[in-house]
C-alpha cells in the first residue's frame, strides 16, 4: 500500500486537517508513554464523527491497511506504537460528554473524553467515575477500555471492566455494533468483558457508557512507616483478614518515598524502609470505626509511625506523593522503566528480595511502588539511555522481574497491558495452545489481522525464538521489537 494512494483515498472521506502526512506532523504520534519504542506511522487520521471512523475502517479493510487506534498516548506498554505501513486512528477529536444521567447514575461519553473529565462533570450530582489511573488527568476513557485500566481504588471499586455498561464499537469491516447495554447485563456472550482490555485488537470503541457511583460521605487515609518491608506486607494481609476492604492500599519503598518526598513534600517518613497508605471511605461513622481498626493493626504489625491525615489538604498531599511517584523517580534518574506485574500478595517478601538481588546483579537501581491491596507491583528501573547498553540491560532485568511474577503465580501485567513491551513474556505466561486460542479468538473479530497487529499476542515464531534466547542462544525477531 502506497502512502499517497491511501492519503488520496482518505481525503475523499476526511477534510484536509484530519489527515496528517508530513513527517513533522506525524512525529508526535511516533510513540506512546513508553517512549523507548518509536516508529513513525504512514499516516494519521483524526476523525470527528462515528461515521468518519466507520468510513476509515471500511477503507482500510478494503485496502488491507493495518490500523492502530490511539487516545492521548499515555499508555505504558507501547500499545499505541504505530506501524510503518499502518494508519494511526486518533480518537482524540471524539471528545464530547454526550449525557450524564444523575438518576440512572450513568455517563455516556465519546472515547476521547479524559478519565478525570467524567468525574468532574458528574461531581455536581454527587457522583463520580471510580477507576482512577495515575494518568487520569490526561488519559482517555477509550484508552482505559483498551487497557482495562485500574488505579489506586480498584481493590474496592474494581477495574474498568467492572464500571462500564455499554460500548459502541466499530468492527474492522466498518460496522457499528452495540456491546453491553443500559441494563446491568445483556444477552449472549460477555463481549463487553472481551472488548475491555483487548488493546485495540478486536474493534474500535466510539462511544462508552460508564456507571457512576455516589461520592462517599467521607474518605480518610492512614500513613504508616515500617523499618522492614516484610512487616509492611504483613500489615496489608492483616487489614484484609480483619474484614476491611480499603478504598486504597499502597506501598512504597525507601527509594520511592525519598523521590516522592523531594518532589512534592508530602511529609513522608524518609528514613522508613517501607510506607503504607491506607484509605478507607464510607459513612462518617464507618470511616471512624475502620480508621481506628487500621491504626491498631498497623501498630501491632510493628509500624514505627502511624499518622492519620489531619485535614483534607493533608490527605490530598499524602496521595499526591503516591500519584506523583513515577515523575518523582524521573527526577532522580535520566530515564526510568516502569514494570507492571501482579503477584499473590503473600509472595511479596520473596519477590522483593529477589528483585533486590537482580537489581544488584544488573547494577541498576529499582524503586518499588506497589498497589499493595491487589498485588499489583510497579518496580521502576532507573537507567540512563545515553549509556551504551543500559537500556538493553534494563529491558532484560524488567523481563526477569516479570518472569518472577509468573513463577510465583502472578501475571506479567496488572493494568498497563502487553502492547509490544511484554509480548515476549506472553510466551512465558501462556503455553502454545493457550496462545493459539487467543489467536483464534482474534480471528473471530478480525480475520485479516488489521487491528493493531503485532501487539498483545505473540506469533508462534516469536515464542520459539524467545525460548531459544532464554536458553542462552541467539534469536532474531524476539530481539528486534520495533525499537529505533
Amino acid at each position, binding site marked *: 500500500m502506497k502512502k499517497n494512494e491511501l492519503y488520496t483515498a482518505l481525503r475523499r472521506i476526511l477534510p484536509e486537517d484530519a489527515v496528517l502526512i508530513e513527517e513533522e506532523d506525524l512525529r508526535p504520534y511516533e510513540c506512546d508513554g513508553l517512549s523507548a519504542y518509536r516508529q513513525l506511522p504512514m499516516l494519521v487520521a483524526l476523525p470527528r464523527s462515528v461515521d468518519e471512523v466507520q468510513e476509515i475502517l471500511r477503507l482500510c479493510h478494503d485496502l488491507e491497511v493495518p490500523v492502530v487506534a490511539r487516545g492521548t498516548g499515555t499508555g505504558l506498554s507501547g500499545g499505541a506504537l504505530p506501524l510503518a505501513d499502518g494508519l494511526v486512528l486518533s480518537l482524540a477529536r471524539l471528545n464530547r460528554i454526550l449525557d450524564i*444521567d*444523575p*438518576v440512572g447514575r450513568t455517563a455516556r461519553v465519546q472515547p476521547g473524553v479524559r478519565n478525570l473529565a467524567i468525574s468532574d462533570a458528574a461531581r455536581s*450530582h*454527587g457522583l463520580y467515575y471510580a477507576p482512577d489511573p495515575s494518568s487520569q488527568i490526561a488519559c482517555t476513557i477509550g484508552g482505559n477500555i483498551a*487497557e*482495562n485500566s485500574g488505579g489506586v481504588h480498584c481493590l474496592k471499586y474494581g477495574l474498568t*471492566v467492572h464500571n462500564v455498561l455499554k460500548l459502541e464499537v466499530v468492527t474492522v469491516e466498518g460496522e457499528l*455494533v452495540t456491546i453491553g*447495554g*443500559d*441494563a*446491568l*447485563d445483556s*444477552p*449472549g*456472550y*460477555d463481549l463487553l*468483558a*472481551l472488548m*475491555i*482490555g483487548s488493546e485495540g485488537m478486536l474493534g474500535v470503541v466510539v462511544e462508552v457508557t460508564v456507571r457512576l457511583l*455516589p*461520592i*462517599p*460521605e467521607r474518605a480518610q487515609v492512614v500513613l504508616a512507616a515500617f523499618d522492614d518491608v516484610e512487616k509492611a506486607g504483613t500489615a496489608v*494481609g492483616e487489614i*484484609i483478614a480483619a*474484614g*476491611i*476492604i480499603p478504598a486504597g492500599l499502597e506501598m512504597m519503598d525507601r527509594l520511592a518515598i525519598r523521590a516522592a518526598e523531594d518532589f512534592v513534600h508530602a511529609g513522608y517518613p524518609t528514613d522508613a524502609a517501607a510506607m503504607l497508605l491506607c484509605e478507607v471511605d*464510607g*459513612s462518617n*461513622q*464507618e470511616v471512624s*470505626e475502620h480508621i481506628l481498626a487500621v491504626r491498631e493493626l498497623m501498630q501491632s504489625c510493628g509500624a514505627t509511625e502511624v499518622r492519620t491525615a489531619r485535614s483534607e489538604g493533608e490527605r490530598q498531599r499524602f496521595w499526591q506523593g503516591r500519584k506523583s511517584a513515577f515523575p518523582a523517580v524521573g527526577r532522580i534518574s535520566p530515564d526510568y522503566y516502569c514494570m507492571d506485574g*501482579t*503477584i*499473590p500478595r503473600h509472595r511479596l517478601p520473596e519477590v522483593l528480595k529477589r528483585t533486590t538481588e537482580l537489581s544488584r546483579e544488573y547494577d541498576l537501581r529499582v524503586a518499588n511502588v506497589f*498497589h499493595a491491596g*491487589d*498485588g*499489583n507491583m510497579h518496580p521502576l528501573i532507573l537507567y540512563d539511555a545515553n549509556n551504551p547498553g543500559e537500556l538493553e540491560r534494563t529491558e532484560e532485568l524488567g523481563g526477569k522481574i516479570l518472569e518472577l511474577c509468573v513463577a510465583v*503465580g502472578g*501475571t506479567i501485567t*496488572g493494568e*498497563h497491558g*502487553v502492547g509490544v513491551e511484554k509480548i515476549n513474556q*506472553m510466551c512465558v*505466561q501462556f503455553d502454545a*495452545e*493457550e496462545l493459539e*486460542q487467543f489467536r*483464534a*479468538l*482474534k*480471528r*473471530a*473479530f478480525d480475520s485479516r489481522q488489521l487491528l493493531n497487529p503485532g501487539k*498483545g499476542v505473540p506469533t508462534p515464531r516469536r515464542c520459539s525464538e524467545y525460548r531459544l534466547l532464554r536458553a542462552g542462544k541467539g534469536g532474531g525477531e524476539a530481539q528486534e521489537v520495533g525499537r529505533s
Partner: protein
Amino acid sequence: MTGDREQKILEQLQDAAAEGTPVCITGGGTKGFLGGQPRGIPLDVSGHRGIISYEPKELVITARCGTPLAELESVLAGSGQMIGFEPPAFGEHATLGGTVAAGLSGPRRPYAGSARDFVLGVRMLNGHGQNLRFGGEVMKNVAGYDISRLMTGAMGTLGVILEVSLKVLPIPALETTLVQSRSPSDALDAMVNWARSPLPLSAACSDGERLYVRLSGAASAVNAAREIIGGEPMEEGEAFWRDRVREHGHAFFRNAGPLWRISVPATATTEMLPGSWFIEWGGAQRWLRTDLQPKAVQAAAAEAGGHATCFRGGDRQVGVYQPLSESLMRLHRNLKQAFDPQGLFNPGRLYPDF
C-alpha cells in the same frame, strides 16, 4: 485421583469428538431448566471436585468445577468470607462450574457486582480437548483476552470449565433488612433514589405490596443508614433474601406458567407490560408473569433499554434469550467456531443457531 477425573472427562470428550456427537455438560443437575433444552450425551463433571487453594488474606478461592456451592460457602464462612455475587443455587447440589457457566447472580448483584465481576481465572477444555488456563488468582491481570469472563454465562457452549478462581468478600459485620408498605412505582422511586446516595445498600426488592431493603457493612454505617431509610426491621431477613428471593421460594415464583426475567435500567417504568411483577436488584432485574407472546415481552424489554429471558416454564424451542442483531450473532458464531469448531458443547443451550 483428580488427575484421573480430569483424564476421564477428556476421554469422554475425545470419544464424542471422534463420533461427532455433541455433549451436554452437567454438574449437580440444578439448572437444567435454564436456557434451551439440553441436548447431547451427558458429560458429567460433578465428580471433579474439591477446593484447590484458599487464602483468606488474598480474598481468592480456587476450586474444581464439581465442587458443591454449599461446600464453598461453608468453607468461606469459616474464615468470615462469602461469595460476593450471592449466586442462586436452585437446588442443594449446585456446583461452582455450573454457577459460573450459568452466570446467575443474586440480590447483592447491583451493589457488589455480578458473577463475571468475581471470576479471576479458569482452567478449561476447549473443543480440541486442549487443557487451557486463562486469568489467574490475582485481582488485576490484563495479559491476553479476558477468556475467563467470556466463559461466565456462556452456558457451557465454549468449553468445559474445569477449575475456577473467584474473588471473595468479607461477610459484612452487620446486615439488617427493613420493610415498608409501598406500591411498586413508589418502591422503585425509593430504590433508585437511595442508590444515588452513599448508603450501604446490599439488596432491594418489591413484591408488589412491600419494599424490602437490606443494609450491610460496619455496624455504625448500617445503624446510621437505618435512620435515613426507615421501615420495620425484619427478623428473618437473612432467610428472606436467601430462600424466598434468591432461591425463588416466594409465592410469586411458585405459580405455574412462564416466568420472565426482564433486565432493564433501574429507572425503567413499572408500566412496561401488563402482568404480575416482582422487582429486584433495585429495579434492574424484574420478574414477570404474563400470558403475552415472547415477541411482545422481548419487544417491550428492548423498548425499555434492556432484554427479556424466558427463565422458566416457557416454550424452550423458540429460543429463551432475547435474539441478537445479525452483526452480534455473527460475532457469536465466529467465537463459537474459535472455541468449539465441531459444535460439541451444549448445542442450542444459548441460541438455537449453535
